[in-house]
């Protein structure tokens, strides 16, 4: 039997797109559906049967101290990382951008240094941070002691550990934000600065507030959302340095879903954690889409 031309074309299309489409459905869409359904069950990995328990997993999550800890810790972590990482990224980018005018090599070197943590393997760097912050052998406490300060248990003090992790999160993401801001800075037409100078805004400070900052507004929103999306996923540093401890003081959503699902094998409850994590990210993406739209209108 011979196929018509249309038929053959359709077969070609199928041959080209079917493998990728099937793989997407199998490894992304079906799992999302399953995880949503599982979140209403008490299924445990390896158990022969399970029951539908309605929204009990979600109730447990939001009413138990440990569940609430994971949510509030993640939100606090994100709330610390966003302003500092975005602010530092902006300051560094502005500095590097201006430095390129009189010391291009030094400016490039600075860019390379600030980007290093983004390229490095975070788990290996977490192991290094552990030694930097080591209670007795770490350089931070040794310096503090030699200056007469009080050494701290950066990673095992309940009140401190989340801030330490946030500091490392900031350390890791400044370079990425710097790159995004540098792209934004390069897109500002130099005429605007000339115009500002004629209007009397000659100093670096007033140039920044009259030209740079308003022009970077949309970029800043975009960078904030991206920083938030990445901060919500914090896992590597937690798993490597604290395991969520001490006493769940540094437990975050992704780490909690890992522990409940794959250490305690509570698939149902871990699915509920997954859905809460997913909901936060989707809300952020919705925000991101609106921001990108605004960015386009602005230009």
């Amino acid at each position: 039997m011979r196929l018509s031309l249309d038929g053959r074309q359709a077969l070609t299309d199928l041959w080209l797109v079917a493998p990728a489409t099937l793989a997407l459905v199998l490894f992304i869409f079906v799992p999302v559906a399953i995880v949503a359904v599982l979140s209403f069950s008490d299924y445990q990995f390896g158990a022969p049967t399970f029951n539908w328990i309605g929204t009990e997993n979600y109730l447990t999550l939001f009413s138990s101290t440990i569940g609430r800890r994971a949510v509030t810790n993640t939100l606090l972590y994100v709330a610390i990382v966003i302003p500092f990482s975005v602010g530092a990224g902006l300051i560094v980018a502005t500095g590097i951008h201006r430095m390129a005018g009189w010391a291009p090599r030094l400016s490039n070197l600075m860019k390379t240094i600030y980007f290093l943590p983004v390229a490095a393997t975070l788990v290996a760097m977490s192991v290094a941070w552990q030694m930097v912050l080591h209670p007795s052998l770490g350089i931070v406490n040794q310096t503090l002691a030699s200056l007469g300060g009080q050494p701290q248990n950066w990673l095992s003090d309940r009140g401190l550990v989340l801030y330490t992790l946030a500091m490392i999160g900031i350390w890791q993401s400044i370079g990425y934000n710097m790159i995004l801001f540098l792209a934004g800075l390069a897109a500002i037409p130099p005429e605007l600065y000339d115009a500002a100078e004629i209007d009397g805004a000659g100093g670096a400070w007033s140039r920044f507030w009259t030209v740079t900052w308003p022009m970077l507004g949309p970029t800043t929103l975009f960078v904030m959302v991206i920083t938030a999306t990445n901060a919500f996923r914090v896992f590597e540093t937690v798993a490597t340095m604290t395991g969520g401890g001490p006493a769940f003081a540094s437990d975050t959503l992704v780490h909690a879903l890992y522990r409940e699902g794959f250490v305690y094998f509570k698939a149902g409850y871990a699915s509920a954690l997954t859905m809460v994590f997913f909901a936060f990210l989707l809300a952020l993406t919705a925000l991101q889409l609106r921001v990108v739209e605004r960015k386009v209108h602005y230009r």
Partner: protein
Amino acid sequence: MTRILLSRVLPAALLGLGAAFILLPFVWMLSLSIKPRDEIFSTTIELLPSRIEWSNFTFALTRTDIPLFLWNGTLMVSLILFFQILFAVPCAYALAQRNFLARKLLFGLVLAALLVPFHVTAIPIFLGFAQLGILDTFQALVIPFVPSAFGIFLFRQFFAQLPSELFDAARVDGLGETAIVWRIAFPLALPAATAFAIFSVTAHWNDLFWPLIATTDPDLATPPRGILYFRDQESGDNVGPLMAAALVITAPLIIAFLFAQRRFIQGIASGGLKG
């Protein structure tokens, strides 16, 4: 004079201070990795050791499984990248340069898939792999990442910019669509492929989440998973070799970055489009 001080020296000094903070863990890691044991455990602050202790590196490279972890990582990221491209490129080409019924729907599907972080799909994939009995195998590290919505999206955007006359001419010359994909479209898309390769290799070399879940056999450990095995075995005793191992594990990406900075930054920054 004051003006130059304010506009150049002060900002440069601040940038330098920030850079010192960024470099702190790198410098401390490097410093400990070449320090003799007794100097690591001394309480005085010395960045430079009295003599360079190479035995930390020889220990990490010969008495531990670090070389095996590096090999596992290399094999894993290569296979993931190979299959991602094999699946994504034909689909992206069809989405950009061919007209078929469900084209819009399929592109919508790709965009929707971009919104799903891997963490969300981990539990069902784990369940499925347990059913199939392929947990704790090397395949388990690769298979979940074969479909890359981000790859399809990136290549589609690139192919959409190419003139369709180019592909019509190839058809007139008698090339089939599969040949057009791999012999014309893909070589043209090399800039997109480089960006995607850098993004994919970095992401999977550094990933801890899935290797931690999918494998328990230390022989299958990827570099991040492996260094944690090493650290937990030594229980804080062998700091020098541990720092040497951390350095060796992060070195490939750092070296690649230093040699191809612009491409590297482009590749990683392009990942910002991903949800």
